[in-house]
């Protein structure tokens, strides 16, 4: 009875009710959206480095090394020598290593020089291996394997020829045109920076750079010497390398050994620890965003309080009529509280709907522009708890007008006061 009265009463004031629901829905959307992006970006970053025990590069700050070598944010300051890599890779605790050589780009996408170990040992997410979507693994030094985003955006297929530019950047005037690579494979989508990377062999990169050096300097002797020393042989330097250990318990000792390596200043980073440092930096911004969205929720619920309170004075006589036909003051109380709860719940439902619509439509944009891979899944327990808190807050706020009308209906009795 009371529920149907509350519903009909709201239907009668549908414009105000719709505005109230809209403001709560937007507030909930913002609150959950901020939380979702925070959570998903952390998940996405953590998934990228999930299988790696240590990241080793030239001496620099751990955060900088992690961001530049793994996430391709910024550039590495220094390279490390090949013999240092070899020395560490041959230690007994080491299960596998993946050398990484960065610094070139192709139409805005990073070009990564690496070895067959990359395809063999790299893990992301929950222990997942890289899979080929098309083509095959690289063999020769002119072979290139591209990530899913590169293939989609630039419409490359196995057999296409690509030219690499020196320096990372969208536009570069220094193109290695004499040394084109041939796309022979496309990797399946991973939701990590791998999707936005062009992978070539270390040898291929070296040969390309030596050709370029020879070409620009027009010194046949130097070119011949470099070609002699480089082509087919080992590269002289790499940007960083990933290390997988036989036993995770060795990670601290290994990290110290690398940091104390005598022949070259190196830095070994535990990716998870470095990510925590990143989150500490971004934490303040996240807290601010969360505070702002919480305030928006408060404003939205405040709007509902105002709408309900202003409706009360004109509804006092309605309450007297209801009392005259036998409604108890507690039912009058429930009528107003029910309206508040109904408005809040509907606001939450619409907010979640807007959030999911936004996530589904915004997913490609977030991925291509921000490199943020949002998984559109069920709400997490934390998000459900947030929604529960909003519902609870809505109910508590509804107590204010409900209590007022309860007092009115006790005091007025059935006399109609306008």
């Amino acid at each position, binding site marked *: *009875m009371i529920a149907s*009265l509350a519903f*009909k*009463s709201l*239907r*009668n*004031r549908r414009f105000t009710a719709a505005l109230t629901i809209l403001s709560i829905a937007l507030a909930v959307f913002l609150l959950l959206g901020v939380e979702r992006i925070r959570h998903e970006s952390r998940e996405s970053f953590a998934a990228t480095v999930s299988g790696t025990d240590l990241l080793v590069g030239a001496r620099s700050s751990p955060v900088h090394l992690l961001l530049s070598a793994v996430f391709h944010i910024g550039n590495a300051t220094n390279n490390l020598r090949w013999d240092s890599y070899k020395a560490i890779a041959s230690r007994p605790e080491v299960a596998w290593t993946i050398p990484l050589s960065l610094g070139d780009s192709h139409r805005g996408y990073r070009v990564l020089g690496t070895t067959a170990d990359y395809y063999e040992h790299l893990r992301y997410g929950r222990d997942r291996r890289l899979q080929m979507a098309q083509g095959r693994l690289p063999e020769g030094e002119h072979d290139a394997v591209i990530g899913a985003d590169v293939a989609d955006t630039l419409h490359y297929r196995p057999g296409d020829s690509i030219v690499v530019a020196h320096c990372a950047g969208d536009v570069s005037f220094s193109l290695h045109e004499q040394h084109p690579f041939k796309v022979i494979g496309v990797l399946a989508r991973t939701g990590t920076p791998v999707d936005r990377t062009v992978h070539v062999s270390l040898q291929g990169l070296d040969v390309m750079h030596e050709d370029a050096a020879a070409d620009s300097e027009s010194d046949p002797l130097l070119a011949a010497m470099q070609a002699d020393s480089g082509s087919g042989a080992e590269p002289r330097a790499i940007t960083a390398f990933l290390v997988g250990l036989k036993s995770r318990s060795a990670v601290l000792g290994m990290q110290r050994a690398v940091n104390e390596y005598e022949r070259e200043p190196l830095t070994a980073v535990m990716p998870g620890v470095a990510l925590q440092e990143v989150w500490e930096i971004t934490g303040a911004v996240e807290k601010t965003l969360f505070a702002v969205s919480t305030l928006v929720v408060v404003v939205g619920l405040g709007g509902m309080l105002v709408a309900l309170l202003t409706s009360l004075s004109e509804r006092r*006589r*309605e309450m*007297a*009529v*209801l*009392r*005259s*036909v*036998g*409604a*108890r*003051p*507690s039912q009058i109380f429930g009528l107003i509280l029910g309206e508040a709860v109904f408005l809040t719940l509907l606001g939450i439902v619409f907010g979640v709907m807007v959030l999911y619509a936004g996530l589904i439509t915004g997913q490609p944009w977030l991925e291509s522009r921000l490199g943020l891979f949002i998984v559109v899944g069920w709400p997490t327990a934390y998000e459900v708890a947030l929604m529960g808190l909003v519902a609870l807050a809505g109910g508590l706020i509804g107590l204010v007008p409900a209590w007022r009308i309860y007092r009115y209906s006790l005091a007025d*009795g*059935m*006399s*109609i006061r*306008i």
Partner: protein
Amino acid sequence: MNCGSAWARDGHREKRKEEREKVIEQLRRTLSTHPSPLMPSPLVQLSNVRFSWPGAVSPTIDIASLAVSTGERVFLRGPSGSGKSTLLSLLAGVLAPQSGTVTVLGTDIGALGGAARDRFRADHIGFIFQMFNLIPYLSVVENVCLPCGFSAGRRARALQSGGTVEKEAVRLLSHLDMAGEGLLRRPVTELSVGQQQRVAAARALIGAPQLLIADEPTSSLDADRRNAFLELLFKECASAGITLVFVSHDASLEPQFDRAIFLADISRPSPDAPHRAAA
């Protein structure tokens, strides 16, 4: 052991004797207030009722005795501010007196709890206000059906009489000349005041409550409509055997009722009302 149980039995006998005496005493008291059991028992009985609003120096209502018989049409008159609405709230059990008893249908409603009084009102009392009787967001029929949502008894009686609650509502509305198709579908806010009052009357009558309380229901109607409204109201009350307590300050309506009560005559003079102090 034996001794103990005999004692207990004695105590029990003693208690039952006390109870018997209590019942006899109660019967004696009832008989004294009802001079003859053959006389129709009063539907409403007020004795020594006092009620003061919080903060008021003197009681708004101070009535030694007032009785309304079953089926009677009583006209209750008094100047504004004389406590008419307060008296009606006491009769309807919205307010409870600070002292004395308000008995309706043999139930001392002042002794009931708040929720029980609300239930009692829903079951036995129909109410018509001076104006703004209708819930604006409900249709005409929904407005009339409202009491059946709060009282199972009135719902049952409406079902018995009309088949469904809605049919009974339409039947009552048609008796009050309100059943035109256009009228039933129109939003209640677009009805004229006279039409609104007739819808309110149908709502007060649905499910045949024993007592109908009308608080100046005709004060916003012109003379012709006032008489037509009263006529319809009387007819419906008579056919359903409903007792009517009708409040108005319009003395011209008085002759149409069985009995007229001037509130100032039954409510004791209060010291801070100057015109009474002079008298």
